């Protein structure tokens, strides 16, 4: 009888404990419920050094997007044949550029859309033109053969579907001049907050806006 009543509570308790452990491990401590967020967390906490992102831009120039430079770089993955998510994400990036330029575009900020599909410079140039040919916005294709490993190090999960569609993370990474990732803006972040944060970061003399973030993501 005693054994029976012990089993009544012990078995469900064990199942719940084991289940909790499995759930916690699988979701990185209940923080990552999609492969996109899991890749972001698995890449490591920020600030962290971005992996080398050797890319060929719309003008045909090859450069490392993550190399130390004088500019902050706002980096987002995309590809030109994307049917749904990329046009929306790129339009959001375009709005960031437009809002920033309305007052004064920070001279030390470059927006970089990096293709996960080896898109050709000519095609990138057409897309760049279509998005207003903004001088502070660069479109580039990673030159490596195995892009996915590099993107994984950045924190971007990529899945190449059999039908040719490439599903990938749409987080936007802000690299400081040393090439360190200091912010990750997710698709849920409000445009105004991103702009305010960028203004504060790229111009340290400026008073922090109430919309700017206090700490790194």
């Amino acid at each position, binding site marked *: 009888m005693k054994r029976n009543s012990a089993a*009544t509570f012990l078995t469900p308790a*064990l199942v719940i404990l084991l*289940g909790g452990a499995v759930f916690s491990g699988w979701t990185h401590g209940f923080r990552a419920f*999609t492969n996109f967020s899991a890749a972001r967390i698995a890449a490591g906490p920020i600030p962290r050094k971005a992996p080398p992102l050797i890319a060929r831009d719309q003008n045909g120039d090859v450069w490392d997007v993550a190399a130390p430079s004088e500019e902050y770089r706002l980096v987002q993955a995309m590809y030109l044949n994307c049917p749904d998510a990329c046009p929306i994400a790129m339009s959001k990036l375009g709005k960031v550029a437009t809002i920033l330029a309305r007052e004064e575009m920070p001279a030390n900020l470059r927006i970089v859309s990096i293709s996960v599909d080896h898109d050709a410079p000519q095609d990138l140039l057409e897309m760049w033109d279509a998005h207003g040919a903004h001088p502070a916005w660069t479109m580039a294709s990673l030159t490596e053969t195995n892009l996915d490993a590099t993107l994984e190090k950045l924190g971007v999960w990529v*899945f190449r579907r059999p039908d040719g569609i490439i599903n990938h993370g749409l987080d936007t990474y802000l690299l400081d001049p040393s090439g360190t990732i200091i912010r990750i803006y997710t698709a849920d972040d409000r445009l105004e907050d991103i702009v305010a944060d960028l203004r504060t970061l790229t111009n340290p003399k400026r008073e922090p806006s109430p919309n700017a973030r206090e700490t790194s993501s």
Partner: protein
Amino acid sequence: MIRPASAFTTILLLALAALLAFSPLDTWLDATMPRIVLLQMPAWILFGWLVGRKRGNILVHLDPRGLGALAFAILTVIFWMIPRSIDTIGYSTRADQLLHASLFIAGFALASGFPRLPFVAKAALCIMGTSHVFALGVFYTKHTALLCGSFSLLQQQELGHWLLRLTPFILVLALVGAFRALARAAEQERQTARP
């Protein structure tokens, strides 16, 4: 003592389950998000449930009230509803096999534990299940960002629409089950009250 007819049914069900797991039908079921969630997952739970109805009593001494079985079934279903888990079915055969095995066991556990639960707990479980189906339906229909990266936004929204369409049917099924259980309980009460 195992009756031959019961053993035959169990073997038949296991053979059908094996056929589902290793036939081209499985590849077809794995191809889209709605097929995985709306056809494949219920099918494996059903297989487990049918076998569990015949053999579920083996768990009674381990789990006298059926609460452990219930917890296992709920946690397993929740695990496979996590977008990251559904995603793995799209690219990992091992994950797919794990889905088959775990949901089969979940169905088995449910068949063993559910009948032993008091009516209130059964009703609560049905209400929770129905509301989760509805909530997931709303979530997948309205969410504009892709959650399951192995599939498409269209499939995600299609799944949401199907879950919303299915909610009233699940509700009706749950109500019918509840009324039948209440009627059975009333009948038993009448019989015990007879002199």
